């Protein structure tokens, strides 16, 4: 297993891409449009435009359907899926192994207190744990137990502008995703520090994963190294390839 220390250099390609996107303004639409082209109906841009417009309509429909107080069903220890499936855009062997002592969670965007957070300080915040079902966009599901800081408490602690529209995540495995603020503030959304699997296993996202039981699995980033708050939809790894952005459960 390779050691993975995060530094700004790791994010340079990503930052450049984001700058390019901000320049383009219609970033998400362009990115997703490009991806849908040639992947759905061959050379039929009108169809791709329709599918893309419907995906944005479905974002709005899902946001309207989202009830901020509706809780995801809770399961018992006996229901846990073991072993919990590993899933990422790469094989399990390539999952980053991060040094917990050197780790710092970076903050940026519309946040008052951007001081990076070491793991032990995250551990000092109030901790909860819950057993919920993770539903993958591929159709399968698995029940796992995650523990950590209620994300709303963390957002309040760092002085995040919770009137902003989006929370974005960047990860040590070059993954990224973003969610709407109402989902970020949902009572079950967790800054997870404890994961399914045996103690010491790091493949499920150590040291920090964001667990959102009201979202499909790919909206639950592992190995999170940076959290940012913004009013411009940051898209994400799969979202930019054409998957529906809201992807709520």
């Amino acid at each position, binding site marked *: 297993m390779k050691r993975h220390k995060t530094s700004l250099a790791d994010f340079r390609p990503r930052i450049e891409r984001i700058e390019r996107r901000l320049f383009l303004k219609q970033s998400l639409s362009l990115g997703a449009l490009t991806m849908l082209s040639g992947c*759905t109906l061959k050379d039929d841009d009108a169809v791709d435009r329709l*599918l893309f417009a*419907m995906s944005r309509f479905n974002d709005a429909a899902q946001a309207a359907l989202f009830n901020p107080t509706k809780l995801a069903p809770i399961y018992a220890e006996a229901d846990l899926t073991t072993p919990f499936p590993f899933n990422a855009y790469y094989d399990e062997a390539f999952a980053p192994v991060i040094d917990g002592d050197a780790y710092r969670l970076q903050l940026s965007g519309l946040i008052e207190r951007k001081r990076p957070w070491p793991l032990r300080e995250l551990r000092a915040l109030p901790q909860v744990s819950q057993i919920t079902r993770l539903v993958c*966009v591929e159709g399968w599901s698995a029940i796992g137990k995650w523990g950590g800081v209620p994300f709303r408490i963390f957002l309040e602690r760092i002085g995040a502008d919770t009137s902003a529209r989006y929370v974005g995540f960047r990860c040590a495995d070059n993954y990224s995703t973003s969610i709407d603020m109402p989902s970020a503030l949902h009572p079950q959304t967790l800054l997870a520090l404890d994961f399914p699997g045996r103690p010491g296993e790091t493949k499920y996202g150590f040291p920090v994963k964001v667990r959102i039981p009201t979202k499909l699995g790919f909206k639950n980033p592992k190995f999170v190294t940076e959290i940012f708050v913004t009013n411009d939809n940051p898209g994400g790894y799969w979202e930019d390839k054409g998957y*529906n952005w809201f992807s*709520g*459960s």
Partner: protein
Amino acid sequence: MSDSARAPTVQPLFLRIVHWINAVAVIAMTLSGWRIYNASPLYGFEFPAGLTLGGWLAGALAWHFTAMWLLAINLLAYLLYGLATGHFRRRFLPLWPREVLADLCDVVIGRAIHAPGRYNAAQRAAYLLAVAAIIAAILSGLAIWKPVQLQELTALMGGFETARRVHFFAMAALFLFLLAHVALALANKNSLVAMVTGKSEPTP
């Protein structure tokens, strides 16, 4: 009837439009659904990729979540029309199991009467089952799309994993109906013509 131009309308325009929109929606939902199924097969087989719609999982999902509106809104219009105009009562009732069985035997031995707009008992049962399968597909689809927001519906379906299977079998039932429906429509061109022009051709 000797002159098809003067023949009475057996399939009203509204029904013909709803029928063909439904055909497009059901085929789009089925073929994109097959691609989605292939991403995580439930039953040890995959659908031939060449028959599916969407090219890859994200494309198939985009198709599926577009066509679902067409399917659901069209079905709603059909149900409202059928209930409000008495169309369901006139076309689908009465429905006695004995009649259905007798007419089903006639279908099998090729002696069934297919008069456009006047359904035999086997047809009445088949069309009602097709509508029921679409409703089951929509409800189980909602249950697996929104297992948190619509968790009561998901629970009613037996939970997320059971709802996936209900969704699969609703598709399978609808697809079997589609095969029989297309085969019988091609064997009874009169009913096919009536579903396009609304008029019944003279019977030989």
